[in-house]
């Protein structure tokens, strides 16, 4: 599904250049649930941004489902993101003047789906995250866990090939975190490929594979016995 070879990335900071990713080789098969771990500055967010086509790589190659991701202009990148990827952010990033259903339907709007279909599909996905009754509520009326579930529904509604989650539980208490992880595991059980950036080891343990990043290189890449989040809920 994801094939990365010899990935380099550096940021220019004035006259200095900060080499963030120093030759990453990394691949993900379909249906995997991967945790990317590392302390801050390890390059894990940069890696996720490149995977999410939010940032460009300097060197190396990136193939997503057999499609080489390179030389993208803004429009093409937007279309690929819309078609291939779903995003979940630490701070949820829901649009605060749109209700839950409208937030979930937004990626479909960019797919130019007609309004009625869009709303039906958004409701279906809200139902899957258990928030159908909250469809007409604004984000300000939802709890943190609910917001993240809305965000997950929004990420999944476009039926992406890969779900990218950047610290999805970072802003949540542990109980709510496990609920969110439970939801993510269930989505993964259906065969969806998911990548999670986290620095919490208990969250990482709920994945099937853990990749440790340090100073821009992969320190460790191991398959783990998945801890089911439902045991803690």
């Amino acid at each position, binding site marked *: 599904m994801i094939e990365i070879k010899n990935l380099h990335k550096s940021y220019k900071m004035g006259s200095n250049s900060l080499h963030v990713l120093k030759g990453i080789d990394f691949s993900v098969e379909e249906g995997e649930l991967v945790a990317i771990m590392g302390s801050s500055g390890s390059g894990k967010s940069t890696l996720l941004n490149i995977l999410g086509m939010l940032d460009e790589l300097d060197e190396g190659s990136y193939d997503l489902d057999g499609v080489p991701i390179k030389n993208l202009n803004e*429009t093409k990148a937007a279309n690929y*993101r819309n078609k291939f990827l779903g995003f979940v952010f630490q701070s949820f990033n829901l649009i605060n003047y749109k209700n839950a259903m409208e937030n979930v339907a937004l990626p479909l709007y960019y797919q130019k789906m007609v309004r009625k279909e869009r709303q039906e599909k958004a409701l279906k996905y809200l139902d899957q995250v258990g928030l159908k009754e909250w469809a007409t509520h604004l984000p300000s009326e939802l709890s943190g866990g609910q917001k993240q579930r809305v965000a997950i529904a929004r990420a999944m509604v476009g039926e992406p090939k890969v779900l990218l989650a950047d610290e999805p539980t970072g802003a949540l208490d542990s109980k709510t975190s496990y609920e969110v992880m439970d939801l993510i595991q269930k989505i993964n059980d259906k065969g969806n490929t998911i990548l999670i950036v986290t620095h919490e080891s208990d969250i990482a343990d709920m994945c099937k594979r853990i990749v440790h990043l340090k100073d821009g290189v992969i320190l460790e890449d191991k398959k783990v016995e998945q801890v089911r989040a439902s045991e803690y809920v």
Partner: protein
Amino acid sequence: MWLLDIDLWREVISTLTKNVLRTVLTTLGVIFSIIILIMLLGSTTGMINGFSRVFAGKASNSLFVWGQTTSVPYNGFERGRRVKYEMDDITMLKSQVKEIEAIAPRIELGGFQQTVTVKRAGNTSGSRVFGDFASIDKINRKKIIEGRFINKNDINQSKKVCVIGLETYELLFKPGISAVGKEININNIYFTVVGVYEKNGDFDFDGENAVIIPFTAFQKSFNSGDRVDWMAILIDSKYTVAKAEGQIKELLKRKYDISPKDTRAIGSFDFSQIFTALSAFTTVLQGFAFFVGIFTMLAGVIAISNILLITVKERTKEIGVRRALGATPKIIKRQIILESIVLTTIAGVIGFIIAVGMLYYLNTEVAGKSDVPFVNPTVSMTQVVISFTLMTILSILIGLIPAKRAVKIKPIEALRED
């Protein structure tokens, strides 16, 4: 058609209504600019209408020609000779100058601007007395308030009839008494009144204290023979008056042995010059109105653009999320430009309504007062369409600035902002 996209409109409306006070304040500039533009254009129209009332009844493409004294010796004649016209000149000019549509020779009893005693039943008036052809009506139309003007029949039969001005009527008749059919006495010759006229517009060479009698009756009654004091000439609107004027003068100079270099011998007044000057004046006024209007409008639209720049900055994160979810730069740009158009258009409509109300008030308060040349200040549909088109184009062009700024935001930078 993306303009029909309900969701796009909902987004635009929800952003604009997020901070209503700011949105309203933003639009003030455009509202004022439209008020200024419409008021200026309307006032200009009011002035144009006012002028056309002043000159009502006067043919714009007309010319008056009279005789003066020669200033250059020529063909054995000394300078200082008085130039006098006769009826033959009329025939000659009419047959040789194709630009002439109508020519009305005029004669005045006692000479130009001389008053004559007119009597009726013990009342007297000092009035001007004109000998006229019916065709004078085409060049300097009177407003007939009773009876009729002199006609061809009166001319052909040299009828001793007359049309009198309102002031003459008031001097000779008791109020409320019909003048038509009554006789008045001019130099002991009786003329039957067939009509009473009023000045048409504020501007009339003849005034209202005057008696107009058929030219032929004038000739017979006052023994003026072939004499013509001056001529009023109507030029076909296809031609310019100035060109015909030159031709007429040349023919008259040749006939009366006047030096071609003599500029004083033949007096003339090109009435069209007044109208040309007036229309140039009003065109300049309209141009000025648009000039001022467009620049205030530009300032107003720039204010809108400024506020949109601020909202773009405020929405950096939201724009980043949208782009992560698949919004293309085009979609982002489109929304911001539409915001610019919507703000400008709403402001324009509000300004337009206020301005029309103000013009209406101006019309009831100022216009119609006879001493002010200001009547019915309105804006034409064309002017409104031009103003709104300009405004929309400006709003699109100016809206491009915040739109460009918005797509410059990289989704990743936008998401980083917390």
